């Protein structure tokens, strides 16, 4: 039996969560203050998942880049590949918040969406 101390990254509270693992099975999770903490701790022990945020190039807008975010967690070990995909994208203004820019990023089931709106200039 092994006990891991984790810091939940779901929100800025940063709960310190203890996970007890035996033979790859999560036996118990303690220290979390919400259900998301437990889900995080279980997933973290198997394959860490994270939200990815970045920017893509945008034409005809106030700024040169548009902030983007994955619609849900993707595996932490896929970040570099995901960034490569995101870097290929250029969008044309106008863009609305939550517009899908990349569907099903690398088969993760997560979309890359615009994290804000930007008008056409």
């Amino acid at each position: 039996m092994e006990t891991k101390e984790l810091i939940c990254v779901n929100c800025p509270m940063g709960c310190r969560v203890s996970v007890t693992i035996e033979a790859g099975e999560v036996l118990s999770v303690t220290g979390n203050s919400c259900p998301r903490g437990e889900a995080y701790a279980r997933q973290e022990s198997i394959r860490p998942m994270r939200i990815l945020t970045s920017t893509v190039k945008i034409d005809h807008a106030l700024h040169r880049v548009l902030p983007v975010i994955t619609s849900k967690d993707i595996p932490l070990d896929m970040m570099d590949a995901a960034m490569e995909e995101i870097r290929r994208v250029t969008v044309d203004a106008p863009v609305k918040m939550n517009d899908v820019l990349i569907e099903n990023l690398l088969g993760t089931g997560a979309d890359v969406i615009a994290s804000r709106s930007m008008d056409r200039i």
Partner: protein
Amino acid sequence: MKHYDAVVIGGGSAGLSAAVTLKKQGIENIIVLEKDGETGGILQQCIHNGFGLQTFKEQLSGPAYAERFIDQAAEAGVEVLTDTMVTHIGADKTIEYVNSTEGYAKIQADAIILAVGCYERSRGAVEIPGERPTGIYTAGQAQRYLNIDGYLVGKKVFILGSGDIGLIMARRMTLEGAKVYGVAELMPYSNGLPRNIKQCLEDFGIPLYLSHTVTHIYGHDRLERIEVSAVDEKRKPVPGTEMYFDVDTLLLSVGLIPENHLADEIGVVMNPRTRGPVVDENYMTSVEGIFACGNGLHVHDLVDFVTMEAARAAEGAARWLKNGSSAGRVIRTEAGSNVSYIVPGLLHTDAMPGNVEFFFRVTRPLDAGEIIVRSGEKVLRTLKKKKLMPSEMERVLLTKQQLTGLEDNLTIEVKETE
């Protein structure tokens, strides 16, 4: 001279929340003055997620959080002037500003809400010896270049200070292909949120050097190398512990300071610890009719609290506009043992408008503590809490009944417990 019931200076998270709340309170004739080309403030460059859990019960990126308030302000019909820099305010509540359409202009307000935000401590403030090459940025400046303007400021990076912006930038620059060699923190503990140590440093194998600082800068034109040394308990570099990193970029994440040039000019009383104005339970400063909120009042770690605080300041301003100043006894709040500051700083205990939430920070990390609120010897509230960190703002609520009629100053202290 154009007249407004209330003028909000700053269109970031605090200013937008204040403006929306003023409208809700029936104060219609208002305007927001914003120096940047759009509203939203610093949130627009904070493209990472984790905002809004308290306010919206979901995890938003900074720009998404900002957009909700930009939309609310637009729906409420809030008038906004962007690209407009306020150059002076008067105790008579005149406001002078400049922009490219009007040139210089002067307007009259009944009430002013300062929602001016904060600025980053710069290299000069930490006095690193050595040469003066290019390649040294504050973390927030590098963040703006990358996330708004689309330029990566360097490829080989070291970060001084473990503030949250520095940690966030360590991850962001790593994802963009830069190599981040490490983060040095002068104190024996991190100044960032624990989740950011985890997901920004540990996730990417970036070392955190606690009790270390940058002791020398090398490079003629561009930064070429830095020297990092361990420090002793008195925060003095220990000879013989020098490490060298060949980097082209040094980011500074060494603290934020409320921006108070406007308030300073008219003699608004400041709290030397927060470096923001001293305010009462209505968020009014020492100058009648001038209110303060957000990072310009004291530096927050969560935007949700900025939003909440700005709404309270706007409610205070609305009350003042309708009823005038609070009369009667005034007591002060005093930071007791292990507490560095308390906001608000003054209370009119004969005219409490409602419950008051006090914001404070501890001076050092405590594994467990008992928060004690008392007026003189009379204990009003005690609260046990685990893991108190200077980087995490604490809150304690007292009811209107508890506060009404208090005669002795209100002290908040934290007793270390087992």
